Structure formats: C-alpha cells, structure tokens
C-alpha cells in the first residue's frame, strides 16, 4: 500500500477543523442573503441588470425577484421519462492498434403505460481515420479524438441518442428527456479547444438536436432538461451580489474577483453557493424562479439558450437546466419541474431514469480489461505477434 494514511489523516483533521470555524459565519451570511433575496423586487432586479455591463463574475439573468418559490403540478396519470448517459475508453498508446470506445446507454421508463420500459446500450469503436474530426474542405484541418475531445464526442452521442429515442416515441402521453449534468457546454469554448470540436458539438449536434426536439414538441407533449446534482454554481448569488453592489463597473473590477468581493455589502455572498441559499428558500418540492445563463457560450446557442431553476427534492437542491423554448412555455416548464421532482422522489434523491441510464452506460474495470484483452487477442491472431508495450506487460505482471 503506497498511501501513508497517518500523514493524510493529519491533513484531513486540519481541513475539517478549519471548516467548522467558518460554519457559523457562513450560516449567518446565508440567512442574510436569503433575506435580501426575499426582499428583492422584479423592478429592482431588472433595473440593476440593465444598468451593469462588465463585472469580473458570471451572474444569472432574471426577470423577477430572486426569492420566488413555485409548487409542482399534480403528476400526470401516465407519462414516460427517457435518459441517456455515456462512458468511454480512451486511446491507449501502449496498445497495438490506436482505438477508442464510447458506450452510450439509456432507458425509457414508462409509467402507467401498457408498453414495457426499455433499457439499452450501444458501443461504438473509433479507429484509423475515424479517430479524427475533420474540416469540410481543408484536408489538414483535423483534430485527433482523445482525452477531453473524446469526452465531448461522448456528449454528442448522448444527445443524438436521446433525440432519436424521443423521436421514435409513439405514445400520446407526455415524455421528459432528461440528461445528466449541464446543458451549458462551456468546455467547448475553453482555451485550447480546437474549433472543429466546438463545431461538431454545438453547430452539428446540439443545435440540430434542439431544433428537432422543439419541432417534435409541436406534435407531442415533450420536455427536455438536464439535472445537476449538488451543483456548485454561483450564478444566482452573483446576481444578488450585483443587486447589492453599490459600485460602478470599473470600481467593482478592482475590488472583486470571480470568487469573492472585498467590499460590503456584496461580500456577504463570498463562498456561498446557489444551493446554500435555495436550501433555505425552497420548501420540499418547490422550485425557484427561472434564470437565464449568461455564459459566453450562449452566443453560439442561438434560440436554444439555456435557462435554469433549482428544486428542493427533499434530499438535495438540484439544478435543472432547460432550453429557452421550455423555459418560456409555462406548461412545459411546470411539467419539467413536476416530473423531475417525481423522478427524484422515486430515486431517493436522484432521478431514476438518469441513474438507470448511467447503469446501462457505465464501463467497469472488468469491461475495460475485457476490451483490452479482446483487442490484444485479435491483434495477436491476425498479426501473429504481440505488439503491446513492455510498460503494459510490467503492469500486468508486477513481479518481485
């Protein structure tokens, strides 16, 4: 065993003691923040958001007071929830043939319907030229699919698969398509990300998928959302920070960072997360107001920019993200709130469909080993040679 637990435990004790000291102060500031949120008015928020232009932090767009809470609707008699998730095996340079695998799993769970629920998983193997994202015309414009790029391609496959299963849904009852994590794919706009990745993820997948789903929603009762468990976002507390801020844009930039403010009164939200304030504001089952994301990636989302709200599901505060056409349709918004809450209650705090999709997609250590073994066995068979690296061999046989 290479981890020295005696050394690690000393650090853990220091960390937890530090946390306990901050706890009381945080609780008081959370309570104060909630009072400010409850006292915020629609006019005050809208006016403040209109008057600011540049701050060193990301805030949520809002069209009403920050302290609103809404009850769910009654659960529909019959409905379905579909979800997809993915898992991947990255390119391993120690193997004889460079290849990667993406496994997309999913489910469609039908409630009070005659048709049975479905569970599926579909592996796709990438190799050779398939391991490159290519530009349309320029032959040298290409990017190798591995690491985080493979992760983004996995997201693409998850979205496409979910869109396809919803398109094939024949029942008249409502359906909710639910994804794991955020719909705000900010990673593709990060530094060092090749433009072809962004093109493939946003322009060629996300936008067409959302177009297709929005069209489908004209003929069937369809909601689309993603669920973020234990969200670490601070968009709404930053809106409160902005609301409380008495400085001009230029002064704020000198006093505040993305994480904290040095000046009063906006420093009351320092190190407070959205979920902290909504844990106080929302009773079990309630959702918050709907907010809009002001992430820089939204400029690429066109008419499908992302809105979000928080729900107290009884176990945790979850963040629900929806495209604009759901956010601006009161019936679909309410359906999304109601069905996600029901999913969380059935799943003891986490949506059942998302959890089952994960179970279909997940690649265990033995799956990964089996994939590697099969690849090696077939390579040896066809090439009559063992092309694995000595590093892999040494890990497989850690001899003394």
């Amino acid at each position, binding site marked *: 065993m290479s981890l020295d637990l005696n050394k690690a435990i000393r650090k853990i004790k220091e960390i937890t003691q530090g946390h306990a000291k901050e706890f009381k102060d945080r609780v008081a500031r959370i309570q104060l923040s909630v009072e400010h949120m409850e006292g915020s008015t629609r006019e005050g928020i809208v006016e403040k958001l209109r008057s600011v232009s540049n701050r060193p932090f990301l805030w949520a767009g809002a069209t009403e007071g920050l302290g609103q809470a809404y009850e769910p609707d009654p659960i529909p008699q019959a409905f379905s929830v579909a979800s997809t998730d993915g898992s991947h095996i990255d390119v391993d340079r120690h193997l004889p043939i460079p290849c990667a695998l993406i496994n997309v799993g999913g*489910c469609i769970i*039908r*409630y009070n319907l005659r048709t049975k*629920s*479905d*569970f599926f998983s579909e592996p796709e193997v990438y190799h050779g030229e398939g391991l490159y994202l290519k530009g349309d015309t320029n032959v040298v414009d290409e990017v190798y699919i591995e690491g985080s790029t493979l992760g983004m391609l996995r997201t693409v496959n998850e979205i496409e698969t979910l869109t396809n299963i919803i398109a094939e849904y024949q029942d008249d009852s409502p359906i909710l398509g639910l994804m794991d994590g955020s719909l705000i794919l900010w990673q593709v706009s990060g530094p060092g990300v090749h433009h072809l990745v962004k093109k493939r993820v946003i322009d060629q997948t996300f936008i067409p998928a959302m177009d297709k789903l929005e069209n489908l929603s004209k003929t069937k009762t369809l909601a689309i959302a993603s669920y973020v468990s234990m969200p670490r976002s601070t968009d709404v507390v930053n809106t409160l920070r902005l609301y409380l801020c008495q400085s001009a844009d230029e002064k704020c930039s000198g006093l505040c960072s993305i994480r904290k403010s040095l000046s009063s009164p906006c420093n009351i939200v320092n190190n407070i997360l959205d979920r902290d304030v909504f844990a106080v504001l929302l009773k079990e089952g309630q959702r918050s107001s709907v907010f809009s994301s002001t992430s820089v990636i939204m400029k690429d989302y066109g008419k499908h920019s992302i809105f979000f709200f928080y729900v107290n599901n009884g176990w945790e505060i979850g963040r629900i993200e929806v495209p604009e056409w759901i956010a601006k349709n009161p019936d679909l918004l309410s359906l999304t709130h109601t069905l996600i809450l029901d999913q969380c209650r*059935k799943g003891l705090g986490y949506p*059942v469909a998302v959890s*089952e999709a994960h*179970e279909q997609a997940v690649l265990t250590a033995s799956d990964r080993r089996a994939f590697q073994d099969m690849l090696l066995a077939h390579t040896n068979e066809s090439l009559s040679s063992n092309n694995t690296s000595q590093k892999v061999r040494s890990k497989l046989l850690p001899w003394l």
Partner: protein
Amino acid sequence: MRNLLDRPIAEVIEANIETFKAQCYELYKSPPLGSLVKAGDIPVYGIVIDIATEGLDPSRPIAARGFSATTEQEIYTQNPQLMELLCTKFRAIAVGFSRDNLLIQGYPFEPPRIHAFVHECLSDELSDLSSNPDFIHLLLQHPEVKDEILTASIISISKQTNNREAFLVRAGKTLAIELTGQMSRLNAILRKLKQ
C-alpha cells in the same frame, strides 16, 4: 394454437451434472418448489429445489421503495423499471434424462447446455417419473435437499399424476426402504405427505 407447455419458461444459466440453474422469462413466474422441469432439446429432467428473485446486476443492492406506497402493487406501478431489472431464477436437481423418448431416472451423462430452454413437463413425462420413484433416492442423497423439499416434490408430482393414491403408496414404500433406521424422520415425512 400451440400448447402453453410448448413455450419455454426459462433459460439455463448455470449447469453441472447434478444441478442446473435457470432464469425465468417472466418475473415471479417460476415453476413451484418440487415441480418437474426439463431443459434442452434432448431433455435433462430436474426437480426445482430453490427459487430466488434478485437484481439482474448482482453489484446493485436492492433498496426498500415503499415508504409512501399503500400496496405492494403500487411500488411496482411507481417503479416500472423494476420489472425489467429484477429477475426470478430457480435451481433444479437433475433426476433424469431422455433416451429414445423415455425418461430414464438418474444423473444425465452431460449437463444441459447454457442457454438451453427450460419447459414445464407434460403429463406423460410426469407419469414416467411417478411410475418409478427411484428419483427419491437421488433426492435423499443430495446434500442440498432438505426433507421439506423432498416432501414438496412428492406432493407436487402426486397432484399431477393420474393415480395419486398409487404413486403415494409407491413413494411411501421407497421412503421406508431408504430411511431404514430413521423412524422419526420417516414419520415426519409421511405425516407431511398425508396433509
């Protein structure tokens, strides 16, 4: 129209000479304890000695879900995925095999193949078994077969044979020979059979 007995009820997922395990196609639709089933195209006959319902994925623990439900059915209605993610399995002890369309009692020379279809038995196959209670010897010899399972098996077969009385008399005589010197055990089994 095909006879219902033509349809397989389960599929073999583990097998050796003495026992085989099968996964039912429908949740909670296992043949009852002690009943006779057959597995494979050249059938191996077995008597059901254990039935279990569990998660398809053994790594996933099953959690209670009925906190707010008023009936057991409501739990399944509220969680329809359970019907697809749970499965019922049963184990059977091999008591015979088929040769020239006859049921020969004893262990088969080969276990049923994995994925072999499992059917419930037809009445003439039950007659073959009940006409000669040698299978009782096999069951008594098997360490996993408790007397309750043996009794359940004899009762199950007796209910499906044409001449129940005659079968029970033959079974009783076989038991008396097999359990010589174990009077209290024999009496306990016979008392059960009389119920």
